[in-house]
């Protein structure tokens, strides 16, 4: 088991963002977290990364029990995160080259030149993007840089927090394809947060539906697509994601 989360609770002041959540994600699996805003899906992801303070419960990654917000260097190399907004997650005054060099420097990995070129090539950007600043890139290109930055330390697990919801539909397709391709090539484990059921069922084998800090239901993507869900809430989400249906005209 790669990630095992048991009875995890996260509290912000007097607000319980996560209420005793248990989730396990196997090695090489792509796991989705779905829910509406405030459901705790991002908080769960952030708790794994050590970005949210855990008040109760345990998180175990690759057999290593994690406590508080401290993470070992091995963890930081094995687990990388990609955030929602590519406009906010890159340093505005650093070139792509400098941003990709940073994780290498932190982990004391040499051979920067070759790795940077390889990482850029892997996300389909090419070396001409190496010395550009984020404002010279489109949203999709920035998200590619963010993915390259995550991949450059050769992680095993990627935590993806709404990686495509700030992008146009056509760009979203490109980035989703890239993520799938990269996962296939390196055998990565994905935990992906999204509010879009279409995206999650496309990308993930299993998913957990969350609502007000609790897991409502964990099911296989094929079961969701086939309408084999247990909870009413999941069904409601499913209906809502199909688009607007007009109530019949009165009279």
């Amino acid at each position, binding site marked *: 088991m790669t990630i095992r989360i048991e009875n995890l609770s996260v509290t912000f002041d007097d607000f319980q963002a996560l209420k005793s959540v248990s989730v396990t994600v196997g090695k090489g699996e792509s796991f989705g977290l779905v829910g509406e805003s405030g459901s705790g899906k991002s908080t769960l992801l952030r708790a794994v990364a050590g970005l949210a303070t855990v008040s109760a419960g345990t998180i175990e990654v690759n057999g290593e029990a994690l406590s508080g917000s401290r993470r070992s260097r091995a963890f930081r190399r094995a687990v990388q995160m990609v955030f929602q907004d590519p406009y906010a997650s890159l340093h505005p005054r650093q070139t792509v080259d400098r941003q990709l060099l940073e994780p290498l420097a932190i982990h004391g990995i040499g051979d920067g030149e070759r790795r940077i070129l390889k990482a850029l090539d892997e996300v389909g950007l090419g070396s001409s993007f190496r010395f550009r600043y984020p404002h010279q890139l489109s949203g999709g290109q920035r998200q590619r840089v963010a993915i390259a930055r995550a991949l450059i330390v050769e992680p095993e697990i990627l935590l993806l927090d709404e990686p495509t919801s700030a992008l146009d*539909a056509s760009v979203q397709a490109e980035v989703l394809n890239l993520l799938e391709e990269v996962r296939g090539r390196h055998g990565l484990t994905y935990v992906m947060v999204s*509010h879009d059921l279409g995206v999650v*069922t496309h990308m993930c084998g299993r998913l957990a539906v969350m609502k007000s800090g609790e897991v409502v239901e964990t099911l296989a993507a094929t079961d969701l697509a086939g309408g084999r869900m247990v909870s009413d809430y999941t069904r409601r*989400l499913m209906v*809502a994601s199909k688009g607007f249906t007009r109530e019949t*005209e009165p009279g």
Partner: protein
Amino acid sequence: MKPLLTVSNLSVTYPTRTGVVEAVRGLSFELGRERLGIVGESGSGKSQTGRAIMGLTPPPGIVRADALSFSGVDLLAATPSTWRDMRGSRMAMILQDPKFSLNPVMTIGRQITETLRQHETISKGEARRRALEMLKAVQIEDPERVFALYPHEVSGGMGQRAMIAMMLVCGPELLIADEPTSALDVTVQLEVLGILDRLVRDKGMGLIFISHDLRLVSSFCDRVLVMYAGRIVEELATADLAGAKHPYTRGLLDCTPKIGESRHPLPVLERQKEWAA
């Protein structure tokens, strides 16, 4: 029947240091009392179109058109005072995020009554009564309570309902909704659309629904204009969506992952230069 809104050869341009940016290029359409969708990706000019119709193109933008008229009023020649009379009472606009489009230091009730008292000579009590009635019409359960709340005290869905109430309280003939539900959760999104749909139908308004979501728009509107690089590339009755011909429209429809489909990798939109020509 005379159309409610006539747009002929509309262009919106922005002079910049590196040359003129053409946000909207030669757009023409007519709108009756119907639901029209305008769909496109970021930078397609869909929002700029909506803003130009409302006279809200920010400087240094320049709006040009052969004709831009709204129920007999020539919008190109409108003076600031004509605009003030029209906006809010005869034409109204709903923006994406209630967090930014409501006044944060005014209660919701005061913002609604302000609209009313700006356009009609009515007493305070009457304005309050109408505002409460309108809040009820957007399915707010406890209108008295929400009337006294500030925007930060309500949820996104509630804020957007208040926004709709404010925009419709004077009974406009034209409503422009620019991504009215993109900031909302899916289940709330449908409730808000349901309310909007009912009000538009009951009041017989013309609606322009601007969105990036082709599927959502087509489930809501009668007719859709698909925009690319400032132009209309295709116009469709929503019933014919499946028969879309333009490769861009087809590409937009194909590239979103849908539940219950397995397409790996997803088809990607190959942009052609001639689409923008």
